């Protein structure tokens, strides 16, 4: 691989790479605002200017203040070039830390802060703002301008998700490029010039496509803020855990940002993965974190309606065991979930098989409002259909599973007389189950199954456990626990192991790693490939 030298360090590059991209791949940062690895090159912020010290030198005529003569005199300085636009060449020598470059960076930074409002105390970007990060590193000086800053519109509503502040904007045009290039919906543009510059909406339009939060995500400053996250948390108090989006079968990688003091998830951010989601996530996916805190099932319940009793976790496990001992296994249906982790599905299937159950179904979300696209959104709005089907194949030897609609039909016809179900979502009308004596539901959220449950067992949500989702491509992606679950609430697989132990079928798993080891190498990629997408 050809290389060039950046501040004396050898940087490898592929033909066609720009200097900044090659450095970024090698883990070396050249300061920049407008460049983004997933977007086209704009070269308008001028922060990434570098000095090419090899080859023919270009000089720029300048006027320099002479202290002795007390006046400006003609002089020259090296011509700097933007690292984001200049293609790397074999043997090139690049300097991004010389005095000339530092002076240029400092002046660019001074320009960008020239009219910037004193907003840090009320700005959501504070703490992850490039203007802040670069100020101490590359400027560390006061501006020379002493006049009133230019004022521009603040708090402009761009759409249902985004608010724009023109005074904070540095006109890097990243948001415009996201709309143009990622989404293909050129709804944003720029008007005026110089310090009157601002980002505007196309006339008669709102910022309302499916990737509006990506404009906020790429914004290097606090100009675009998410209405969902605005004024909720300070980013330096947030910690981050790697997650996998539960919105659809694409399985976009995310950062789950949570505050450990409150055990609360505040937002998701896309986590770069060139194989899956590149740098992006869709709006619906970004909002899936809400399910961690909204419509949660936290109290075990035995019975329905007026006879419902709220009980303790130990009691509900005893109740499940008592009922399972009495239930006739031949008419017991076990429902796996395309919304739950492979670990949960694996333990449920394994336990059910040991108990002699042979009726299995798969509950999966069928959302009418969900529309697939060519960017990230997959037609199947379930994160783990492939994983659940792989479990069915590996553990149960089943090529496919009936859906919840068939379950309801089998209940009506009397074939199924009792149900053990995983997850909140049924994906079909399961009202018929309300007539059954024993409907045991393990779930984190309220939903169709929880409504008809006669024994409701709360389990952890995805943000409160370690787990695996298999996406539509057949990739097993692990996610990591971010926040603690409520008192006594365990992952579904752990609760099932406890139930199995009482029933005399001890699976013996105590840690996620043991379950994963028992699942074996998840190589049945053909099961994933064969996973049928729901009809459009």
């Amino acid at each position: 691989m050809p290389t060039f030298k950046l501040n004396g360090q050898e940087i490898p590059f592929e033909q066609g790479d720009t200097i900044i991209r090659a450095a970024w791949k090698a883990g070396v940062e050249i300061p920049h605002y407008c460049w983004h690895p997933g977007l086209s090159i704009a070269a308008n912020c001028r922060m990434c200017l570098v000095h090419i010290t090899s080859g023919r030198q270009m000089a720029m005529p300048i006027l320099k203040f002479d202290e002795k003569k007390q006046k400006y005199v003609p002089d020259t300085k090296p011509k700097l070039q933007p690292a984001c636009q200049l293609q790397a060449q074999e043997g090139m020598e690049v300097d991004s830390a010389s005095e000339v470059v530092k002076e240029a960076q400092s002046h660019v930074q001074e320009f960008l802060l020239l009219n910037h409002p004193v907003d840090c105390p009320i700005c959501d970007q504070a703490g992850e703002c490039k203007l802040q990060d670069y100020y101490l590193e590359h400027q560390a000086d006061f501006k020379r301008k002493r006049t009133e800053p230019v004022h521009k519109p603040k708090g402009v509503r761009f759409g249902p998700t985004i608010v724009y502040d023109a005074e904070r904007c540095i006109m890097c045009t990243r948001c415009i490029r996201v709309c143009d290039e990622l989404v293909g919906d050129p709804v944003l543009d720029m008007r005026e010039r110089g310090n009157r510059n601002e980002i505007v909406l196309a006339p008669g339009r709102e910022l309302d496509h499916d990737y509006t939060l990506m404009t906020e995500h790429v914004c290097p400053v606090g100009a675009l803020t998410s209405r969902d996250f605005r004024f909720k948390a300070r980013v330096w108090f947030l910690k981050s855990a790697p997650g996998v989006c539960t919105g659809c079968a694409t399985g976009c990688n995310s950062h789950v940002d949570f505050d450990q003091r409150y055990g609360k998830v505040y937002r998701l951010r896309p986590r770069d993965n060139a194989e899956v989601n590149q740098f992006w996530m869709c709006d619906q996916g970004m909002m899936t974190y809400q399910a961690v805190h909204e419509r949660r099932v936290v109290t075990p319940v035995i019975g329905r309606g007026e006879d419902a009793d709220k009980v303790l976790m130990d009691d509900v496990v005893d109740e499940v065991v008592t009922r399972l001992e009495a239930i006739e296994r031949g008419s017991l249906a076990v429902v796996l979930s395309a919304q739950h982790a492979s670990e949960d599905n694996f333990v449920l299937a394994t336990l059910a098989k040991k108990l002699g159950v042979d009726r299995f179904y798969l509950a999966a979300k069928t959302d009418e409002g969900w529309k697939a696209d060519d960017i990230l959104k997959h037609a199947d709005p379930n994160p783990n259909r492939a994983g659940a089907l792989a479990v069915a194949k590996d553990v149960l030897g089943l090529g496919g599973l009936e859906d919840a609609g068939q379950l309801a039909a089998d209940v009506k016809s009397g074939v199924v007389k009792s149900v053990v179900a995983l997850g909140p979502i049924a994906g079909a009308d399961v009202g018929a189950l309300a007539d059954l004596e024993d409907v045991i539901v393990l779930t984190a959220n309220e939903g169709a199954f929880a409504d008809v449950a006669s024994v409701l067992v709360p389990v952890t949500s995805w943000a409160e456990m370690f787990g695996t989702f298999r996406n539509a491509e057949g990739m097993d992606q692990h996610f990591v626990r971010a926040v603690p679950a409520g008192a006594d609430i365990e992952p579904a697989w752990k609760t099932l192991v406890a139930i199995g132990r009482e029933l005399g079928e001890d699976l013996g798993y105590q840690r996620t790693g043991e379950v994963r080891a028992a699942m074996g190498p998840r190589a049945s990629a053909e099961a994933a490939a064969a996973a049928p997408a729901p009809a459009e």
Partner: protein
Amino acid sequence: MKVVGEAEKMLVTNRIFLDRMQGIGKLSKERAIALGCTGPVARSAGVDFDLRKDEPYMVYDRFDFEVPIGTDGDNWDRFMVRMEEVRQSLRIIEQALEQMPDEGPVNVDDPRIVLPEKREVYTTIEATIAHFKLVMEGLKPPKGEVYCAIEAGNGELGFYLVSDGSGTPYRVRVRPPCWYNLQAVREMLMGDMIADIIPTFGSINMIGGECDR
């Protein structure tokens, strides 16, 4: 200075005080060095060691002062060394007041290290940013390690710091004087009376927080 003289006169003419001080709580020069004692405890035993003289830091090389040294390392010498240090400290303060400029900024002029003025923080974005970064992320020393010590009232107070380049230290270790001085008390007291614990312990001037580890 007058009060110091009066206090000293009152004590050194007191028979009970002399009985409790002279020849009590002895520490030899060799043991003082071996135990890592510094400050008045070591100097009273004859160890000529004072960071202000031996490794002058800040502006101590500009001041004219003496370092009192004892001979016996008993309570009496520790008392006398401390009394003399009070007088020497007064000399230093007088010289410092004389040399201090009457006006002008005293802090380093680098926003990466020093918090900006409050007035600037409220009105300019640059100072606001500097304030935010320094308060929330902290001062960022370059990667590496450093040990820095000063002569505190009880001896060498040193800080060992390892930085990974971030705003929080990778490792900090404090070298407090009393942690070392206190362990010498056992040897000082051996062979003396129970009642001697009180004046001997008092002459060490132990700071509890330094020994909490």
